[in-house]
């Protein structure tokens, strides 16, 4: 239903906007800038700062007739209020006349700014916000120029207050707009900062442990209209105007948040281009104007540091030694050729579409086998009944149902948590179906629990209440299956006009997620919720481009250790299986030829015969396919080879393509798509390109059906978005970057549909009487190679730990933080880790965060002992 439209004039310009629109937003739509501090277009207005004062007139209505009165000349009689009104809290009304540039308004704004500045330090020259500061800009635009207050009477307050180790507060600079506090409460749902005291003594405090304990804290530095909040990462590191900006995509999770990488060339780094900070870039269909702190603060692995691999390494006399590209490529070519079908290429979703395309194609040409290194299955289904083009969480509301199953969403894909929550707030029916409580439960209409190990059966229980075909359900799920809440949830899901399912791998491995994905697919198929916008299946994948890998035909192996053991040669790209699970060591028996391609000398790379140095995502072009099946481009921000003199003044987008091209003599790290193409060239294969990512993408679009018709130009297209953000609108939306380099394109769905119905076998799952079962879970701040390079986050990442039930802890006589020895019964391995106790956990259940050095690819039997 279209909202009723309302007509008014703003500074003489006629405007028509939907009923309920605030004056400030109506003005913005016709290019009239009303300055604001406390108002933010993503949050409800509070009218705290009074910066947005305007004159507002309304037609005078004759009480008797209910008709508007007219002047003698026939125009509407307009009555102006005695005082200025706040444009940010006032909704438009028919016939309204808004004046934003009168003397009265100017005087009002001058006064407000004069008041704000009475106690503001005006230390712009040393302020990190200087140059992109709303207070600075609005003072220049609307301020009085001079103050009548005494400079010496300024109140001086603490300037370096850590709200935690990530965010610093400068109390003097705070203008008490409340944006940060409101953001944390309303959008992040982490009210861990708040106002304390009153009046001029008001300050932002955090009493959480650790301070400012939220994955969203960095966003407050974007929307703070002054330099009061800064990240420890960027504080005093550079001035905004020295920075160049390159459009990028976050590669920490499958959301694919749009980023801007800020770089500068600096003398302190020997004249090199250096990555200074990561900022959000607006994409209202993906991350809106937000990013999580992992994306903002966890970029250091993609920077250039001394640990990066610079040259190819070749094993000689048992030692890895630097070699030329020529030598390394020739050796690999020769060996790959001789093993042919015996080659296995193992690559992860950390790679771009272009990389995976070239790697897959090379492997196929040799007759080898490509395997996706992933802990989750089900991508065959998301390519067919995944999110259809036109799907946008922002469009989900009253008519939608969203089922989140087997996922701790904020930990696995933070922005999706944020957007699903907003959808629920707009009225979407949110069903959260998990083995344990997660943050999303706070917003769920139906918050359902299944016994650990029975995720797929739980979804089939939903299906059973709706479908004539009723698969047998195991014993352990019966209680849930019979519950009236489950039935009500199933009914709400089925009856919603649109419905989407997000499935994750919480507590699950490949086999379990495979069954879960199929069960979810069945639910979508029998309720006819697929193949159109805002419907379908979304995999909460472990890596940024897992969806892209599936679209390009990559799949994980159901028995990876066996596959690896059988191979004669391994080509491992952007994966480090040995660190994840030492059990893989068996595959590296010295018999097979192993090539590793990566940024760093990983545990796996140490065992290789040849190591190829790869470029980081910051140094090259490429594209990722997000879980929502949106193909998005990223651009180079840094020179690919630190050792080479920069070829262009600024590594801007246009000329950057040259950088990934082949040089006469190969030197330094190369793009992951280029290296397999070099090999192909040596092998004499046709149809490989390495000179630029866009050429590879053109090939890919021609050969991979779902990418048909796409091109880099298409991915770079933009259209206007709301709210308006960017350079001149900093005071309005914050320092989020405007998107000028591409909103990406959602892939069409592959054929499939109803034929996908198939009934997975769900065996009963019971917890053992003795010992325990460890279930893998995902923590946002993991100990993976891509995050450990970010020193700042180490305190939050913490040491390896597991989570125990209360009963287990008391049996072991272990208290919170004590140490346990956990033995993996099958692998005959044991590790000592810290124990945390979770009262809500069932007995015999152990939660083991992934990437903490515990060999768990799925539910794993374990034994626990106290360790002194």
């Amino acid at each position, binding site marked *: 239903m279209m909202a009723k439209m309302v007509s008014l004039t703003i500074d003489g310009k006629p405007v028509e906007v939907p009923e309920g629109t605030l004056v400030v937003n109506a003005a913005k739509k016709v290019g009239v800038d009303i300055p604001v501090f406390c108002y933010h277009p993503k949050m409800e207005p509070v009218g705290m700062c009074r910066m947005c004062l305007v004159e507002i007139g309304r037609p005078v209505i004759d009480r008797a007739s209910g008709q508007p009165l007219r002047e003698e000349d026939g125009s509407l009689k307009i009555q102006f209020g005695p005082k200025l009104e706040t444009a940010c809290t006032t909704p438009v009304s028919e016939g309204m006349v808004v004046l934003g540039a009168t003397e009265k308004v100017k005087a009002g704004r001058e006064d407000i700014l004069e008041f704000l500045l009475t106690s503001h330090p005006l230390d712009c020259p040393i302020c990190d916000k200087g140059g992109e500061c709303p207070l600075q800009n609005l003072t220049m635009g609307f301020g009085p120029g001079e103050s009548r207050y005494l400079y010496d009477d300024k109140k001086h307050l603490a300037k370096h207050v850590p709200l935690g180790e990530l965010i610093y507060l400068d109390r003097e600079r705070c203008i008490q707009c409340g944006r940060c506090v409101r953001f944390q409460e309303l959008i992040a749902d982490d009210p*861990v900062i708040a106002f304390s005291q009153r009046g001029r003594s008001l300050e932002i405090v955090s*009493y*959480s442990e650790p301070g400012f304990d939220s994955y969203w804290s960095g966003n407050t530095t974007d929307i703070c209209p002054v330099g009061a909040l800064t990240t420890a990462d960027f504080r005093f590191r550079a001035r905004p105007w020295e920075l160049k900006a390159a459009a990028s995509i976050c590669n920490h999770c499958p959301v694919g948040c749009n980023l801007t990488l800020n770089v500068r060339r600096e003398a302190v780094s020997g004249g090199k281009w250096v990555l200074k900070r990561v900022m959000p870039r607006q994409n209202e269909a993906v991350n809106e104007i937000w990013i999580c702190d992992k994306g903002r603060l966890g970029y250091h692995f993609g920077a250039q540091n001394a640990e990066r691999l610079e040259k190819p390494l070749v094993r000689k006399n048992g030692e890895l030694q630097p070699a030329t590209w020529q030598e390394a490529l020739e050796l690999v070519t020769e060996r790959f050729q001789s093993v042919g079908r015996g080659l296995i290429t193992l690559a992860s979703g950390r790679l771009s579409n272009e990389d995976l395309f070239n790697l897959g194609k090379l492997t196929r040409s040799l007759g080898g086998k490509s395997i996706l290194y992933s802990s989750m299955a089900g991508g065959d289904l998301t390519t067919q009944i995944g999110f259809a083009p036109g799907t946008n969480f922002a469009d989900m509301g009253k008519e939608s149902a969203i089922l989140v199953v087997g996922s701790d969403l904020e930990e696995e894909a933070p922005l999706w948590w944020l957007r699903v929550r907003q959808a629920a707030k707009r009225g979407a029916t949110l069903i959260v179906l998990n083995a344990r409580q997660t943050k999303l439960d706070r917003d769920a209409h139906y918050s359902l629990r299944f016994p650990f190990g029975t995720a797929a059966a739980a979804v089939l229980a939903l299906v059973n209440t709706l479908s004539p075909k009723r698969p047998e359900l195991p014993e352990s799920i019966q209680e849930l299956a019979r519950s009236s809440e489950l039935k009500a949830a199933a009914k709400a899901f089925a009856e919603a006009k649109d419905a989407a399912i997000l499935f994750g791998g919480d507590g699950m491995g490949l086999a379990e997620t495979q069954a879960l994905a199929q069960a979810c697919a069945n639910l979508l198929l029998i309720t006819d919720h697929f193949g159109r916008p805002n419907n379908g299946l979304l995999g909460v994948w472990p890596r940024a481009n897992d969806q892209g890998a599936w679209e390009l035909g990559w799949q994980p192996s159901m028995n990876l250790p066996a596959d690896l053991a059988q191979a004669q040669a391994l080509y491992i790209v952007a994966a480090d299986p040995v660190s994840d699970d030492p059990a893989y060591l068996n595959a590296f028996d010295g018999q097979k030829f192993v090539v590793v391609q990566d940024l760093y000398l990983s545990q796996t790379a140490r065992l290789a015969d040849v190591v190829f140095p790869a470029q980081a995502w910051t140094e090259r072009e490429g594209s990722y396919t997000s879980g929502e099946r949106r193909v998005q481009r990223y651009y180079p921000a840094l020179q690919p080879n630190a050792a080479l003199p920069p070829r262009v003044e600024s590594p801007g987008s246009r000329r950057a393509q040259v950088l990934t091209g082949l040089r006469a003599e190969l030197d330094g790290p190369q793009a992951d798509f280029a290296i397999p193409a070099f090999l192909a060239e040596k092998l004499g294969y046709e149809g490989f390109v390495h000179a630029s990512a866009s050429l590879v993408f053109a090939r890919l679009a021609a050969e991979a059906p779902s990418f048909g018709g796409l091109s880099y130009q298409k991915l770079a297209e933009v259209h206007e978005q709301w709210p308006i953000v960017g350079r001149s609108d900093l005071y309005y939306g914050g320092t989020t970057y405007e998107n000028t380099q591409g909103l990406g394109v959602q892939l069409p769905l592959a054929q499939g549909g109803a034929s996908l119905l198939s009934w997975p076998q769900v065996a009963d799952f019971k917890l053992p009487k003795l010992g325990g079962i460890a279930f893998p879970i995902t923590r946002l701040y993991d100990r993976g190679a891509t995050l450990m390079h970010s020193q700042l986050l180490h305190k939050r990442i913490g040491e390896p730990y597991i989570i125990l039930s209360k009963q287990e802890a008391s049996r072991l006589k272990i208290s919170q933080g004590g140490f346990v020895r956990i033995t993996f019964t099958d692998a005959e391995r044991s590790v000592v880790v810290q124990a945390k106790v979770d009262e809500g956990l069932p007995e015999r259940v152990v939660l083991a965060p992934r990437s903490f050095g515990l060999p768990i690819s799925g539910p794993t039997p374990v034994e626990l002992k106290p360790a002194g």
Partner: protein
Amino acid sequence: MLAEKYAQEIQTILAKYPPDQRRSAVMPLLYIAQRDKMYVNREDMAEIAEILGITPTEVASIVGFYSLYYEEQKGKYHIQVCTDLPCALRGAERFMQELCSRLNIRPGETTADGLITVEPVMCLAACDKAPMFQVQSGAGLSYHENQTVESALALIEQLRSDATRKRGRDSHV
């Protein structure tokens, strides 16, 4: 631990609010904490947050907002002198200054024996009877109007001897 020491009282307070609006009980729970020690420390804030299902930061924000909750340990008795304009016109400011100098402290400070804190506050709704103050202690509030420095000092002496007697009694049980 407040929850152990005042289990019954907290229970009674919580029973007055619907379970999903437990947070509304933050003020009465803070009274308990303050009555207990004459200030609210970080542990108490964390405990109240836990009981009410809100964050310690939210509790701290409320403690910070109200000037009559104390975040630091001060005297056992708070002599709160109104120094707002009407009272000031009746000499309240001078009264407070003098009282403080007789006690050897500055406004806001606590006497050496740790018993008496004198602090200026806003209107206490007895403007016509200034100089006036209220005494806040674990035992509650009491009003004292039309004061002189001497009458105030006499009262303080009384409070001091009460405290000594009480301490003596406590040590005998």
